[in-house]
Every structure is written in C-alpha cells, then in structure tokens.
C-alpha cells in the first residue's frame, strides 16, 4: 500500500527532493559515529563524514569505540591524524552494554556544546536559541554520506518549522549476492515511498538508524536512546513524536547516504531478526499507545507488526490454496482466499518495475538479468524474511537481547554510478 506512494502524484513527490538552493550555515552538526569491529571501513567513513561541505567550526565528529576493539581504534586514530582536524574526536568506553544506543548516549553527553557557547554567547536567551540549533546526527560505520547533506538539512531546518530530518539511506550493491537486488529495492521503496507515506498520511515516522538529524534539545527531552532496545532508531521516532517533535523526510537520489547489503544470508537473517525483535520490543514497551492521534497509533502499530503480517501471508499461501482446492467451501470464501496470492503477484510486479526504476534514477545501466534475478529470488527472499520473523519471536521469548552485529566490506563504494557520490573539487 505504501510502496508506490512516491509515484502516486508526480507533483507531490517533488516535495521530497532536496532544496535546490542552500541557505547560509546556521545549524551546528555533531555527527556520532558508533563503530565496532569496523576496521575495514571506518577509515573511509571518517573521511567521508569529515569531507561534508560545511564550515569546520560548525561541525564535529565523535567516533565511539569500545576499549577492547583495538583494530578499529587503531584505524580511527590513523584517520584522525591523517586528516589533521581538531573537530574529530575518538571516545573510548569500557562499560556495558555493548550496543549502538549505549555508544550514542555517551556521544550525546559529550557533544561540545559548552566550550563553543562560552566563546560566542553569554546571556541565557541566545543560549537557548543556540541550543536549539544544535543538531545531532548519526552515521553508521560503513556510511557514505553526500558532501552536501549538511547544507540540505541546514536549509530545511532553517526554512521550515521542523525538529527532525530523516534523509534517504540507500543500499547500492544490487548485483553482489542473489538477494542483494531485492534488499536494495526494499530500501529504495522504504525511504523513497514508505517514509513520506507514513509521515504525510500517518503523522508518524519510523526513523532510520542513520542520516537522521535531531535537534539536541529533543534528544535531551526524551533522555537519549533506549539502551535496551534493539531498534533504538524506530523507538526514538515514536518517542520524539510523543514530545511534539515535527519530522521532515527527504529523499533525493543525489543526497542519499550509501550503504551496502549484508554479506551473506546468515548476516541478513541476523540483521533482520534484530529489527523484527526490536519492533516487538517497541510494541511491548507501549510508547505508541500514547501517540496523540488515533491514526498515529494505528500506523505505528501497523509498522511494528508488518514483518509478521508478511510472514503470516507467506505461510498462508500454500495452506490456503490447498484448503481452497481440496475442501468444498462456499465459492466466495474460496475465491477470497486467493487474494493474498494476488497481492504477492502485485508485489513481485512492482519489484520488477522497481529495479528498472532504481537503475534509471541512479543512472546505472539496466539489464534484463536484474529483473530475472528478482523473479527467481523473490520467494527465497520471502522465506528469509519469514525465518527472521520466527527467530525474532523465538529470541524474544527465550530472553536473548544481545546485538547480533552485521559485518561490512566496502562493497557499496566500488559501484560506478551515473550520479556521483562525491563531486570532486577542482
């Protein structure tokens, strides 16, 4: 239902593009970069974040590592020395739990607000204004943000009454593994269509884990991230809206943050299990019940249970078809029992078209093999999703709440594209 929102109204979809002209820098950005066992990619990532085009005194990077992760720490130090900037810091911590929200909270407490404040502002009122201009953002250890992303967000936050911006995240390496293309398309549909749909129609945005920009005052208000939650990003999305934060979504092919798909089926299932389990945690925490509007509650609930609905549909198809064909049911019941199959058919069709659309907007050469690949991979992919859903329930019931981390290889940085990831300065 939400899948095609971006294509519903060509005029409406233009609103989710980045602004064409940028306003002068006004917002201050603190980028949090949590990393664990990311020695292969962290060097490039720090450089990419540091290269974002914005005044040096209005941005900072805080890399968050745990003390036992020596390889990553070595790489981070190498990178900081190499870049020679004083607005990049490495924070090492040794306490528990070992997960992303814990690192983020440490980063949040250590953003360099005070020091800069004393220099520029003295009275309390302008301090408040200044405070509300401080924006926290997150990049994951393999992220490739666009150089203009801060200018985009600065312009949006300066010209519109908004407190949170979620910009597009896009997996890119759609030809790496058999499941990559569908995985890439999930992101394509989700960030381009799903988020605008939920924001506009449902007034609630399930935030992503990175390239999300939040005014610090709101993060302070909700007390930072929930360290017990496996999908801390979706969780703060609901809690921020509960505090009255206004969320803006933007997806512009040029400005998306590029990421890579999990490297294997096991990694994929681990990642998806974590998401599903996190959604169930959020469901049980019940913050969504306190959302002010009925439609917000409904949409939040729908998002949280969506993976399980999909699984039930998938399990239903063989069972339902068998029952419809072998038992004498009222004709109308038998016919309705085929509707889920038709919905899957519709979904496959939109994926087939979607891969062409993806290559078109990213200026990559399309091959008919990409569509064939989707056709072949679609049902195995659904089975992977179903396994992840079952695993999530299993782990939740047996009380396993640790993070299963995804490994990163830099595969998304080697794809030649029509839309340049960097615009090299001459």
């Amino acid at each position, binding site marked *: 239902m939400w899948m*095609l929102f971006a*294509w*519903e*109204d*060509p*005029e409406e*979809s233009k609103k989710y593009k980045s602004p064409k002209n940028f306003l002068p820098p006004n917002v201050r950005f603190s980028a949090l970069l949590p990393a664990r066992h990311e020695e292969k990619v962290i060097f490039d990532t720090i450089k990419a974040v540091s290269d974002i085009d914005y005044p040096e005194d209005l941005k900072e990077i805080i890399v968050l590592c745990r003390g036992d992760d020596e390889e990553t720490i070595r790489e981070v130090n190498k990178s900081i020395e190499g870049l020679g900037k004083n607005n990049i810091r490495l924070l090492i911590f040794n306490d528990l739990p070992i997960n992303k929200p814990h690192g983020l909270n440490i980063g949040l407490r250590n953003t360099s607000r005070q020091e800069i404040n004393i220099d520029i502002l003295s009275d309390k009122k302008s301090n408040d204004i200044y405070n509300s201009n401080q924006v926290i953002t997150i990049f994951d250890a393999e992220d490739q943000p666009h150089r203009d992303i801060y200018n985009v967000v600065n312009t949006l936050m300066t010209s519109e009454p908004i407190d949170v911006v979620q910009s597009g995240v896009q997996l890119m390496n759609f030809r790496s593994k058999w499941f990559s293309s569908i995985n890439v398309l999930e992101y394509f549909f989700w960030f381009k269509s799903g988020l605008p749909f939920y924001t506009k129609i449902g007034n609630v945005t399930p935030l992503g884990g990175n390239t999300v920009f939040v005014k610090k005052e709101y993060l302070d208000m909700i007390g930072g991230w929930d360290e017990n939650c496996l999908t801390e990003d979706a969780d703060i999305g609901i809690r921020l809206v509960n505090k009255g934060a206004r969320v803006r979504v933007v997806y512009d092919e040029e400005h998306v943050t590029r990421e890579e798909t999990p490297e294997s089926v096991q990694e994929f299932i681990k990642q998806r299990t974590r998401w599903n389990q996190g959604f169930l945690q959020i469901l049980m925490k019940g913050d969504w019940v306190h959302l002010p509007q009925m439609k917000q509650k409904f949409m939040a609930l729908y998002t949280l249970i969506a993976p399980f609905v999909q699984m039930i549909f998938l399990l239903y198809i063989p069972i339902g078809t068998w029952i*419809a*064909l072998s038992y004498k049911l009222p*004709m109308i019941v*038998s*016919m309705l029992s*085929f509707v889920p199959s*038709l919905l899957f*058919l*519709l979904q496959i*069709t*939109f994926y*087939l*078209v979607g891969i*062409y*659309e993806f290559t078109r907007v990213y200026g990559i050469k399309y091959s008919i093999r990409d569509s064939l690949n989707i056709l072949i991979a679609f049902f195995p992919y659904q089975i992977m999703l179903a396994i992840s859903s079952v695993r999530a329930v299993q782990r939740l019931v047996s009380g396993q709440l640790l993070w299963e981390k995804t490994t990163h290889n830099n595969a998304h940085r080697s794809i030649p594209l029509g839309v340049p990831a960097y615009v090299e300065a001459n």
Partner: protein
Amino acid sequence: MLKRINNNRKEIILVLIVLIISGLAHGYNMFNFPYYESDEGTYLSQAWSLISLGKLAPYTYWYDHAPAGWIFTAIWILVTKGVFTFGFSINSARVFMLLIHLASTFLTILIAKKLTKHIYPGVIAALIFSFSPLGVYFQRRLLLDNIMIFWILMSYYLILGPARKLSHYIASAIFLGIAILSKENAVFFIPGLIYTVFRTASVVNKRFAIAGWVIVFASIVSMYLLFAYLKSELFRMAHCWEGTYPMSA
C-alpha cells in the same frame, strides 16, 4: 463548491438540457419499442436467480458470458424492491438501462470536454450518442454491452487529462476489469486504453502506471477463471462421447 457551480452555471445548464434530451430520446415509449428481446429475459432471469436462488443462472450456468452485468442488474432489482416495480418485469430492466444511458451520456460529455477543453464537442458527441438509431434500438434493451460501455467510459475518463495520479490508473484498471466481466468484448478496448495510459502518465510514474494497470485488471479478470477452475469447469473434464461433457454452445 457553490462558487464553482456559480462560475460554471452556463455549462451546467447546458449539460442538464443535453441529459434531458437524451433521456427523452431513450425514455419515450421505451416499454413498447423495440420489442422485448429474448436476451433481455435471459439476463433478467439470471439476475433474478442470483437473488432468489443464490445461483448465477436458473438453469446450469454454462459460461455464455461473464456474470458482472447481471450482478449489477440484480443490485438494481434489490434497490428498486423487486422486478415488478415498473409493471412487466423487463420494464424494470429498461428503466435501469435508461439510467445507464444517462450516465454514459454524461461521461461522453466529460470525456469530450477533457480531450478538447471545450463543452460544445461534448454536447455534439452526447447528441450523436443519444440520437443514433442503433443506440435507440439497442441501448434501451437490457444488454450486457450497455453495462460494459458504462464501465469502459469510466475507465477511459480516469486516465485522460494532465496530472494523473497512480491511483487514477489503478481505479481505471479496476473499472476495465469490471467491464470485461460485464461483457468480454471489452478486451478490444485494451490496446486503446493502454496507449492512453502510456501517453498520459508522467515520466515519473509511467512504468508503475502501466505495470499496475495491467496487473490489476488482469487480476480481476483472473477471478473469473479462478471461479471456473474452483468449480472444475475451466478445462474439459471428459470427452464428449463419454457423456459427462457439459452442454456446449
């Protein structure tokens, strides 16, 4: 809304006049001319059997046509509280056809206006549509084609014009599906309609519009095949000389 009506007062009066003329052309003496055709009785009995027997036909349903046409007729009978509301049973069906004709005339005006941006071509088209001797002869009768044409016009109307949304195309496909299930001849409109989809969709949503349009109407039509399959009547189950072969046309 009021303001819009006020601004277009001339047009609205014109359209109302055309509809009154069209109604007169098809309503005058409609219970006597043309004579009651046997097909009318067939479709009406099938609509009746749907309500009274819960079956698609009073005798064995033998797939002479897809059933949407008399499903709508059955709804009409339910709404007007019985087949004898207008006297002889077929009269009820003819009143239904008059309404369908008025709706189709109205759609004709709208379509012509959308295509030319003027009201007068619409008026002319509607008058030709209403005064055509073939139209007067056939469109007064309870024929599935009349119901089909109404849905085809709906389907066509939705995909015309600028700034079409994806939902317009999906709705258009649903109406085409209904049209085909009303009378199978609707398939001959597919090439023209799909060309229109191709022409009117914006470069942004063209591919999804075409794919969505095709898959949605095909899914709806496939329900008919599914229905036959579930009744084990899609494929011939035995050879005719074995004696269990369903009656053929």
